[in-house]
């Protein structure tokens, strides 16, 4: 679907993207997981032609494997939708006016624009506030409308840059639901986040990015299997905790005398993306 090949982008001394290559498959929800400053936004911007790379290229691939072209070409951009990290909306227009305007910019026939706007407003749960100015919207409502605005032209590929940053739980689950609907509809989604939970919950495959480089790409389970290490069994005794890393946590558990008054508690920690990131970078993602 989208092929990123050896992309490099430098800002002065900072190398924002450092030889990044990725192959996106048609119809998958692909996560770009990395801490602040990892180069996620820069990668997306290059993928859609907003900024030019210093090296490498981003090419859109058709279903039959042939190259459609680069995002600098209008015909390629017509197939891509982008939801920028910051809200990109007109404050003084209503939600519906915003959507109709962007539909117009995308060359949608007049007759379809309103219907498409209504459809999207329904989808993101803003139909009741459709005719209110965006200026009066809450952060979560803006994020939802921002997402809707990137979908007006029914793109085959949607790039979402931290769509849930700074939103309340209600808006967040609404956004998750939209991503699920997109997956069901066969849209390819690139989902940028620094939240492991989100990546784990939404993404078919995840690329872990740090300092502009891809450290690992796989399904969430694949990543955990390969880089997550072993499960940890923690037995809390009156004289302290005993941690055991093991491939067979249940076997370890079986060896613990659970009847003993000495044993106060037992916990099994399965490895997650956090452990993957820790083992790949030696740092924790949550900081």
């Amino acid at each position, binding site marked *: 679907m989208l092929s990123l090949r050896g992309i490099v982008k430098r800002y002065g001394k900072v190398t924002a993207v450092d030889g990044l290559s990725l192959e996106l498959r048609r119809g998958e929800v692909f996560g770009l997981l990395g801490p602040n400053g990892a180069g996620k936004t820069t990668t997306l911007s290059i993928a859609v032609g*907003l*900024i030019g790379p210093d090296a490498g290229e981003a090419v859109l691939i058709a279903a039959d494997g042939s190259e459609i072209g680069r995002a600098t070409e*209008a015909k390629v*951009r017509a197939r891509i939708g982008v939801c920028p990290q910051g*809200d*990109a909306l007109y404050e003084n227009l209503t939600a519906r006016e915003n959507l109709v305007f962007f539909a117009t910019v995308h*060359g949608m026939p007049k007759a379809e624009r309103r219907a498409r706007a209504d459809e999207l407003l329904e989808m993101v749960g803003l139909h009741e506030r459709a005719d209110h100015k965006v200026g009066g919207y809450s952060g979560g409502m803006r994020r939802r409308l921002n997402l809707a605005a*990137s979908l007006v032209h029914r793109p085959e590929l949607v790039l979402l840059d931290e769509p849930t940053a700074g939103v309340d739980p209600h808006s967040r689950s609404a956004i998750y639901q939209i991503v699920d609907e997109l997956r069901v509809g066969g849209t390819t989604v690139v989902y940028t986040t620094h939240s492991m939970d989100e990546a784990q919950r939404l993404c078919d495959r995840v690329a872990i990015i740090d300092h502009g480089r891809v450290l690992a790409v796989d399904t969430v389970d694949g990543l955990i299997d390969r880089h997550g290490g072993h499960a940890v069994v923690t037995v809390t005794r009156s004289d302290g905790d005993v941690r055991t890393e093991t491939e067979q946590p249940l076997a370890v558990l079986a060896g613990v005398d659970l009847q003993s008054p000495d044993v106060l508690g037992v916990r099994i920690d399965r490895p997650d993306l956090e452990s993957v990131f820790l083992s790949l970078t030696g740092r924790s993602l949550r900081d």
Partner: protein
Amino acid sequence: MRVVWAIAVKDLRLLMRDRVAAFFTLVFPLLFGVVFGLIFQQAFGGGGGGTPEIRVAIVDLDDSELSREYAEALVEMGGLTVVGVEGPSEVEEQVRRGRLAAGIIIPPGFGAGMQGALFGEAPGIEVVMDPSRAAEAGVLRGLMTGAGFRVMAGVFQRPDMVGDQIGRVREAVRQDASMRAMDRMLMGTLLDSADRLFGRGAAENGPAFGAGDRGGDGAGMDGFTPVRVSMRMPERGGGGMGGLNSAFELTYPQAAAWALVGCVTGFGLSLVGERTSGTLKRLAVAPVRRDVVVYGKALACFIAAVVVLAVLRGLFALPVFGVRGGAPWLEVVSIGMIAFAFVGVMMALSTVATSAGGAEGGVRAVLLILALLGGAGVPLMFFTGWLRWVTMGSPFRWAIVALEGSTWRGWTPGELLGPWMVLGGIGALGMVFGLWRFRRWPVQG
């Protein structure tokens, strides 16, 4: 307190780092104060010896000794910048176009009339006055009367001239058969004493008028005046008589200028806003050329400017305001050219700054200064001397000139061509520059 200080230091540092913001915080107010200080100093003659110079032309159709003396005396009075012209028709033309505040036409027979001024009717001088320069008309009238007194004082110093006059009056009295004997005798006594008076020379008790004193209202002592100044407006290009119908003929183009300020600010800031709000990103990823954003703004700005100018025109044409019109097509072209010019101004101003904050401050501040320099605040007539040249750098000046020319000044298409071409040039340059800058705008951040 430490926190307050830390915040203050941070903000100062930020300000210094943003050169555009620093400019508008420091240099701009300074410029503002200096430039307008100069304007007002020139306009109201306050301090520094600066006095308003009234641009006039003097056409001497008499070309006698006294008429030449009068012209010289008028120049020596000070306060006038005298411009050379070909003849009365050119005076008419230059005043109508606003290049001269007034044209002074000394008619044939002026010298002879001056010689007899004390005893007969004072000689007349015609002044073609720009109706928008009402403030200067009074000053000019005073100067002209003063110069008349000077020339007259000179006449009194030459007994031959006075004696000749007295002799002529004596002769006239003798020949007037209808005069009563009593009157005849009184006149004789009067003329005798006049002879004695002027025989010694009257300059020592000369008129109290001098350079710098221009409080005259046209009449000297007790209604006596050495010259009769008659002021009129220039002929209109279209045929009818020109002249300011009401003060609104002056303020209508100024109102239009402020409307343009609003228009350009609105669209300029909305173009800047596309960047700050991130919507430019969206448009940049849409399958359209990025330039369409600018084209769209330009079109909207043009339409808004035309509508707003047309509405103002319509309002000021109402009888209450009484702003007279010119040929409709001239007005239409003027409005079109002005709107075009200000689309260019909008595009150039809103794209020149790289930082969004700088762009916002810049659009507002530069527009304000251009508007004031272009005569949107203090009317153009107060800009004299080198300041007149400064006004030419402001697009607002050309807008005002085009509006006045195509309405009450009644300019011909040929006369309007100049301002139209300047406006067209401003528009084209601004658009090219704006587009060039816009293409270099960073879409990110």
